[in-house]
């Protein structure tokens, strides 16, 4: 029997065509998906919960995908009507690797007229954004971690700059908390890390934590179990229902943003300026006059003896030139301020750098000039243009340190410094750092975080 089944000979052919078509479509689908997935993506988050604060350090988080060694450029115009354009540029390079790459840094922001960012990759701009002068706000933030934002909207007073954040939005480093006045955790949302909360408090933030709360709040509750206390430059206190003060109001318990800045300015002003060592002027005058007279006289004598003597005098001046030479083209004075309590301190380095030749001063680390001027921060270094003989005063990135046992027994602060500080403090100078403690008996955390009309 040779009868074949219907379509018996053509079927394999149609099946193979179908299979080929299917394979082709699948391949194209994968290719398209791959192409779409390989497109570089970039995003930037500046400030706590994307809310930048002017004249403060702000956390900056940026991500790129499949853009190895891409560059993030943040440009701020810190100028004004009198100063004109003053450009401050921050540049960070992402790791030179494929996949998702992340930058997590702290950047100082001036009082900007314009603020913009862009992520560049191989002469292309992957993403960009901008903030105008209207977005500039130097008021510190009141950060509330809550699941009920509506309940807190008006609780902190009309002047408060309230933002609502999740635990993941909170900065992990001290500098990131520079623009935050208070942190309120009412226990209704997922609890942030206890170390993050402690960092916030030590960085000058007034932290109020609900004693009870959802599951996971136990570590936070333990932080305030003993009642209000000072930590570093800030304070920790249980969120109270007490009548009286407002959470958002300035509080004596913590070194507020303004108080910290005033303290830094006082410390910077008290920093002994850079001193240059000059050869004594009478000696220089004597040497210059003697040389001029001697050289002229010998040349006046003329002849072989005169010329040879003059050559010898010229050779001898090499030693004189070396004697009056500067002992270095760059000099600096460094110090630091540490606001301490409970074994922790918020510490900021201050330094004055002077340079004899004009040109670019390059410093390792990110430093902010006291007087707003043009500056470039590139991959963790600071670059400033200085005129010949110019000098600049800078503050470093705030950090948390342990208070050494020797600090309380350091030398007294220089005379007149205490009066320049914004509040009553005990202070000691040790290891080039001013260690400042709030004076005992000062009105403090007992009046801390309470809402205006009771807890919402």
């Amino acid at each position, binding site marked *: 029997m040779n009868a074949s089944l219907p379509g018996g000979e053509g079927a394999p052919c149609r099946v193979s065509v179908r299979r080929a078509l299917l394979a082709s479509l699948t391949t194209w689908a994968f290719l398209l998906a791959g192409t779409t997935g390989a497109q570089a993506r970039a995003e930037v988050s500046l400030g706590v919960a994307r809310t930048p604060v002017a004249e403060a350090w702000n956390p900056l988080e940026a991500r790129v995908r499949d853009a190895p060694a891409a560059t993030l450029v943040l440009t701020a115009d810190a100028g004004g009507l009198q100063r004109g354009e003053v450009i401050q540029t921050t540049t960070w390079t992402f790791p030179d690797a494929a996949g998702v790459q992340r930058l997590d840094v702290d950047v100082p922001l001036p009082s900007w007229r314009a603020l913009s960012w862009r992520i560049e990759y191989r002469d292309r701009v992957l993403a960009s954004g901008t903030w105008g002068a209207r977005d500039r706000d130097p008021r510190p933030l009141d950060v509330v971690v809550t699941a009920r934002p509506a309940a807190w909207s008006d609780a902190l007073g009309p002047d408060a700059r309230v933002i609502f954040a999740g635990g993941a939005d909170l900065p992990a480093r001290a500098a990131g908390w520079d623009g935050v006045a208070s942190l309120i955790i009412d226990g209704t949302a997922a609890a942030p890390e206890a170390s993050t909360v402690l960092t916030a408090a030590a960085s000058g933030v007034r932290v109020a934590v609900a004693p009870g709360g959802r599951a996971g709040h136990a570590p936070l509750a333990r932080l305030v179990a003993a009642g209000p206390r000072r930590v570093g430059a800030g304070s920790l206190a249980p969120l109270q229902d007490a009548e009286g003060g407002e959470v958002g109001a300035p509080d004596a318990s913590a070194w507020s943003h303004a108080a910290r800045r005033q303290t830094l300015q006082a410390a910077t002003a008290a920093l002994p300026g850079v001193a240059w060592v000059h050869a004594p002027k009478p000696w220089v005058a004597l040497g210059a006059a003697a040389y001029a007279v001697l050289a002229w006289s010998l*040349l006046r004598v003329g002849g072989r003896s005169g010329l040879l003597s003059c050559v010898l005098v010229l050779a001898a001046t090499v030693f004189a*030139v070396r004697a009056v030479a500067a002992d270095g083209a760059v000099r600096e004075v460094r110090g630091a301020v540490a606001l301490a309590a409970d074994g922790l301190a918020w510490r900021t380095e201050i330094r004055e750098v002077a340079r004899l030749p004009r040109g670019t001063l390059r410093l390792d680390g990110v430093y902010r000039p006291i007087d707003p001027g043009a500056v470039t921060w590139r991959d963790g270094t600071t670059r400033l243009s200085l005129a*010949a003989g110019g000098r600049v005063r800078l503050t470093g990135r705030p950090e948390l340190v342990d208070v050494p046992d020797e600090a309380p027994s350091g030398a007294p602060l220089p005379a007149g410094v205490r009066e320049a500080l914004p509040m009553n403090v005990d202070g000691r100078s040790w290891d080039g750092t001013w260690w400042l403690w709030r004076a005992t008996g000062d009105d403090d955390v007992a009046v801390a975080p309470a809402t205006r009309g009771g807890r919402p």
Partner: protein
Amino acid sequence: MTARLDRIARADAGLALVLAATAIVLIATWPVRPDTPNASWYAVSVVRVGALVAWGWLLGATSSPGRAVGRRDLTRLTLGVVASAPLEAAAHAATVPAVPMAWGAIIALPASFSALGAGRLATWLLQRARLGALAPIGSLAAAIALVWLDLNVLRSAAFVPWVLPSAPGVFPAIVLGAGAAATVQRLARPFAGTEPEGTGAS
């Protein structure tokens, strides 16, 4: 040898003025206070180069023509440049400017030689134009015109003595080098014997 050395120009009032001006400015601008950075070089270099250029122009404008006189003027300027260099070097070492020390040390020589040649050329042109009586004024006017031209048109700093020390560059070096080479070639090439030696003023 001794006779030849004796023929070399000796120190004169011009050198005394250059040395005195440079030394006085060095002393006057030397800082006393430790918070003041040393900036003496910025004034010393300007005064030294300016004095040497002015001296060169003055020699060129007032010397009598002749190669022997020209050679003696070149020697005078060379002595002035070399003798005043230690004063500028001292200021430079104490000031540490962004400009290399070699620039100030070297550029003074072609600048003063060029000024000598330009001064002689201006005077010669005025005499050819039968304006010899106006040579002092005319030469000064030519110098001012050259500075004005550089400040407003060329912007090279080659002819501006108070900018030249702080503005090292290829163009000023080429211009002044060419001017100095032309002056030396004109004044110091082997003596043909047709001109009597020692006709210049001492």
